[in-house]
């Protein structure tokens, strides 16, 4: 501390999100103990998060994977209702005025889940490409979904979520050819902000490419178990 004539100064140098990050650490530790892979799925509204999550429960069950879903929405429980119909264990997180899920929302929601033998926890974040990218919620990895109708320039407009993600899912590829979307340009834009990230092309509605995503997930679950 330096004290001048009428002025004093104090160096703090702390992350503004320190309390969120501390909570995220607690969550990460608890997932480490139960060896549960926690994925944080992020996209714009309407990119296909819920549709993808609706498609995978029967495939995961066949593969012997026990999983649960936390689904985030500002006000409604529409997504939880849709996912509940698949027979999956689901908890709705209503974030109110918050446009993203933070670690505190997760901490209260996971008290409703039995982690004994839980292989996978899927978090469906609030539809938004900016805010969720900023918050660590204790996940093992972020996965971003970009859908064809959104346009091939989104990685350039919202780079952080693409640099923070371990996997990019390019969804609604069944619409390629119907819309002015340049696939090669999109891949170039993604690689331009995260050169090493794998990209899986899929159509969660039609089912194409979902196997590749499941393969990626199973491998990632295996890695988590071995740690």
């Amino acid at each position, binding site marked *: 501390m330096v004290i001048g004539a009428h002025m*004093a100064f104090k160096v*703090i140098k702390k992350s503004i999100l320190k309390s969120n990050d501390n909570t995220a650490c607690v969550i990460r530790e608890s997932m480490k103990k139960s060896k549960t892979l926690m994925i944080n799925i992020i996209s714009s509204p309407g990119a296909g998060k819920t549709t993808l999550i609706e498609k995978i429960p029967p495939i995961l069950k066949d593969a012997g994977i026990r999983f649960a879903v936390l689904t985030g929405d500002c006000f409604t429980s529409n997504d939880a209702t849709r996912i509940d119909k698949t027979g999956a264990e689901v908890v709705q997180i209503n974030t109110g005025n918050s446009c993203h899920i933070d670690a505190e929302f997760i901490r209260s929601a996971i008290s409703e889940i039995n982690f004994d033998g839980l292989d996978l926890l899927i978090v469906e974040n609030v539809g938004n490409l900016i805010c969720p990218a900023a918050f660590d919620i204790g996940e093992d990895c972020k996965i971003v979904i970009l859908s064809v109708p959104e346009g091939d320039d989104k990685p350039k407009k919202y780079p952080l979520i693409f*640099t923070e993600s371990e996997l990019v899912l390019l969804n609604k590829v069944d619409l390629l050819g119907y819309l002015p979307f340049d696939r090669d340009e999109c891949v170039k834009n993604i690689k*331009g*902000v995260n050169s090493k990230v794998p990209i899986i092309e899929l159509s969660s509605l039609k089912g194409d490419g979902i196997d590749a995503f499941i393969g990626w997930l199973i491998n990632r679950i295996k890695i988590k178990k071995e740690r």
Partner: protein
Amino acid sequence: MHELMITKNLVSLLEDAVSPSDVGMVKTVYLEVGRLRYLVPEIMTACFTQIKKSDKLKQAKLNLKVLPVKLRCSDCGKESEALENSFLCGSCQSLNVDIISGKEFILKSIEW
């Protein structure tokens, strides 16, 4: 609009920082935020004005410095600044780069 949540976190950190008796009425709060964080300084300032604060923080103004995106190239080893959202090495154009700055979210200091 993640500014409100972030500003709430900031105020709670600040309340801890100003609690010692030798800290006076804070004039300026210095922040460093990376460009990739997409914080809008005007929104953050508006949020900061609205959130309830203790007396020592009531007059405080935010001084928010936006830090550029800096890259380190794994191929040529050089550092460069990314001016656009294509993270290529400024020297050899390689994509094999690490982001070494641009994601900061730091409460740097306070002045009173």
